[in-house]
């Protein structure tokens, strides 16, 4: 519906639509012309309304045309709008809208001012060396953090609004000339087609971006750090920012991403390689150690060396639970403690660790409910799981699954279960990127940043696993010419 020429009609209609009590209709005079400024009380910068709108408005004299009125506001974020719906949308976004009598055009001033958190180091990816900035919940701040890192005309942001009630601004971010344009188009189309009441966090969006409806594995990457995101979009990925969320999503996602810690790139390649190998080994231990231990105890005693077998036999003497139930019970306790420690207030966290670690663990062993080897294996497996925190949730589900298989079908059952996940993983693709690249399919060039972290001079090309343009990222020929 277009804006009426009569100010009273517009006001009447807008008051019917914007019924909330925090919406302010402020009548002002622009010379001899009547006008009204509409805004929501607590989300606009009132000082700026006074300085940039009201002060110039009261200096006006005589009967003025809309163009003359518009020219007197020297405001950078000033947009002309023509429909009642857009007036409502802009007011709800936090802007101030000026409607003028005898004019079918309104002016929207970008005066929104939300409370925001300070930029801090994200708790999910702390580093000893390297940048400590993290994204916050404000989209403009996050965009500014990216702009600060990539001062290029090729850094592109495309905006979409999603959410019937939340009308959440979402920004797609990519580097033009590196990212695959068809991927950007596909993602934008997906975002525009989302019909949802509200987008309260980026995780709401990630469910829509996956190409497979059911998968235990992640289909969309995420990060809270601008330096990592800059590196990812320079590899050809597309990032998605959601207003109100400090977590930026990245597409396409490769499983190896979560094994690459930010500190790998700020430390020496030697220590990074060792750290990565440790991470892979830890994940294997976390996933399979409890399962293989139970399978060995129940079905394959011949696998356990004799001296260790005697220790186990001594420790399980008098334990009322079977090995699989015992392991399952201990893992459940670990998961409950984990869940409680995340939800509890920080000052109670200490109590949880003492009660959980010392009282429950120690006493359970002494009371003969669980055995010491089982407790040790669960503890080791739990610690190992956190070497790749991004995949902790997926892996803890898989760990329980493998344990159930081990308890019922033994070692060969575990091999078969691994084989099923293996087939699933190697054939899984999202936006034409194989999840298990560069291992399967084997991509020699990308292996320089997989198990082994190559020197910077070895990483001359962008990953082949992603369908990116402009393959070369470091040109050493140019560098030597300069010398």
């Amino acid at each position, binding site marked *: 519906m277009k804006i009426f020429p009569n100010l009273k009609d517009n006001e009447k209609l807008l008051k019917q639509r914007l019924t909330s009590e925090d919406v302010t209709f402020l009548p002002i005079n622009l010379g001899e012309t009547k006008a009204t400024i509409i805004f929501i009380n607590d989300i606009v910068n009132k000082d700026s309304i006074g300085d940039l709108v009201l002060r110039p408005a009261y200096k006006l004299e005589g009967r003025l045309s809309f163009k003359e009125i518009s020219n007197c506001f020297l405001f950078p974020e000033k947009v002309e709008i023509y429909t009642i719906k857009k007036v409502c949308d802009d007011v709800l976004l936090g802007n101030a809208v000026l409607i003028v009598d005898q004019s079918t055009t309104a002016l929207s001033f970008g005066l929104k001012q939300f409370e925001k958190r300070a930029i801090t180091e994200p708790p999910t990816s702390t580093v000893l060396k390297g940048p400590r900035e993290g994204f916050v919940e404000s989209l403009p701040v996050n965009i500014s953090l990216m702009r600060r890192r990539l001062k290029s005309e090729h850094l592109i942001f495309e905006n979409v609004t999603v959410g019937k009630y939340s009308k959440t601004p979402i920004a797609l971010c990519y580097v033009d000339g590196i990212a695959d344009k068809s991927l950007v188009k596909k993602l934008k189309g997906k975002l525009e087609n989302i019909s949802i009441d509200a987008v309260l966090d980026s995780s709401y969006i990630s469910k829509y971006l996956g190409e497979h409806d059911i998968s235990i594995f992640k289909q969309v990457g995420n990060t809270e750090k601008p330096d990592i995101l800059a590196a990812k979009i320079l590899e050809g990925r597309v990032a998605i920012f959601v207003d109100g969320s400090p977590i930026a999503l990245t597409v396409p996602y490769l499983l190896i991403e979560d094994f690459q810690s930010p500190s790998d790139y700020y430390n020496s390649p030697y220590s990074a390689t060792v750290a990565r190998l440790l991470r892979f080994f830890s994940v294997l231990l976390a996933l399979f150690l409890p399962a293989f231990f139970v399978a060995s105890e129940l*079905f*394959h*005693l*011949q*696998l*356990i*060396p*004799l001296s*260790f077998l005697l220790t186990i036999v001594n420790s399980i003497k008098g334990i009322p639970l079977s090995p699989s139930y015992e392991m399952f019970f201990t893992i459940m306790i670990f998961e409950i403690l984990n869940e409680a420690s995340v939800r509890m207030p920080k000052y109670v966290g200490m109590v949880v660790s003492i009660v959980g670690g010392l009282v429950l663990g120690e006493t359970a062993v002494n009371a003969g409910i669980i055995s010491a080897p089982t407790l040790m294996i669960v503890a080791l497996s739990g610690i190992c799981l956190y070497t790749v925190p991004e995949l902790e949730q997926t892996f803890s589900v898989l760990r329980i699954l493998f344990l159930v298989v081990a308890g019922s*079908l*033994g*070692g*060969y*059952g575990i*091999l*078969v*279960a*691994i*084989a*099923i996940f*293996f*087939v*699933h993983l*190697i*054939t899984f693709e999202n936006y034409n990127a*194989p999840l*298990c690249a560069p*291992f*399967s*399919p*084997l991509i020699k060039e990308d292996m320089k940043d997989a198990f082994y972290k190559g020197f910077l001079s070895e990483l001359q090309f962008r990953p082949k696993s992603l369908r990116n343009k402009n393959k070369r990222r470091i040109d050493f020929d140019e560098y030597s010419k300069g010398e």
Partner: protein
Amino acid sequence: MQYQLKTRQVCLFFIAFLPLAKLFMMPSVMAGKANEDMWMCALINLALDFLTAFIILKTTSKTDKNVYQLLEGKVGKGGTKFIMCLFFVYFLLKSLLPINEQKEYVIRTLYTLTPTLLYFLPFFFVCFYFCTKPLRVIGRASDVLWLITSLGIIILLCLSIGNFELSALLPVGANGIANVIEGSYATLTWFGDGLYLLFFMGEFSYRKKDNLKILGCYLLGALAVMVFVIVFYCVFTSIAFRQRFALTEISKYSTVINNIGRFDYIGIMMILFSNIFALSIPLFFSAKILSYIFSIKKKWVSPLIVVLFHAFVIIFLYQRIHGIEVFIMKFTGWFFLLTANILPIIICLTAKKEKGYAIKEN
């Protein structure tokens, strides 16, 4: 053109899968027929497969068509379906014995305390799942499994170092050529790997000198089999034919096992894991062929039929499986020879160079 496989994956396929099924019962069957000349049985069969692979690769360099298109152009759709029926039966029979021996191995060696068929049944789930996937699953599995297979074999061979006597192979040819040929004939079901190349034809971008790479990797896989067979006989000599499962037996005299524990199980588990896929591959092709013959569009129907057939044989013909085993080894050798070697060679030798087709440069 979007290819399902890469040349590298075809190369790694032979390293990953060629030796696997041959590490269980086959060495003892060969030893039973030809004693110290058993390595010659393996050599003859591997050479036959090498020749088949060589001729198929020659044809691959002449055309970009896959085997179905190639045959349809030559013998029409009906003729192709008839030939494919032969290949279907071949793949179905080829996997029967290795799956049964895997089942026997799992039940009798891994579950000594509670041996029951139940523990082996989940294999059919993974087999079904594998068969529902497109051809690229084989390539991608090869990319990872070549390392696991190689490590598994190396671990087992290393554990048997010091326990074998190479002179046990002497005198060469003492058992006579007839026994060697009988040994080769009886073990044909475990070979025939060259035939896979016929089904990879047109599914990967063939470039100049790719045949050298592929045949080189075939030879590496074959070398692993030869070394394993020779070491196996040299460890057990005249009682080799009594060692039903070479995989476990080959390292049993190792001092490491006695001092530290069953270290060999690391290698065995690796090989068992790779073998799950190696056993699924013939079923994969039989499912694809079945879909072609009856124009089945739903991707799960053919795999289900094929896997159910095998599950039925393994579960319900449990008591008669030994008879089936003997029948396959004694009477079906000619069929294996015909379908895995002679037929592909005839198909390839009669194929003409496609007009305007040129091999891509590297």
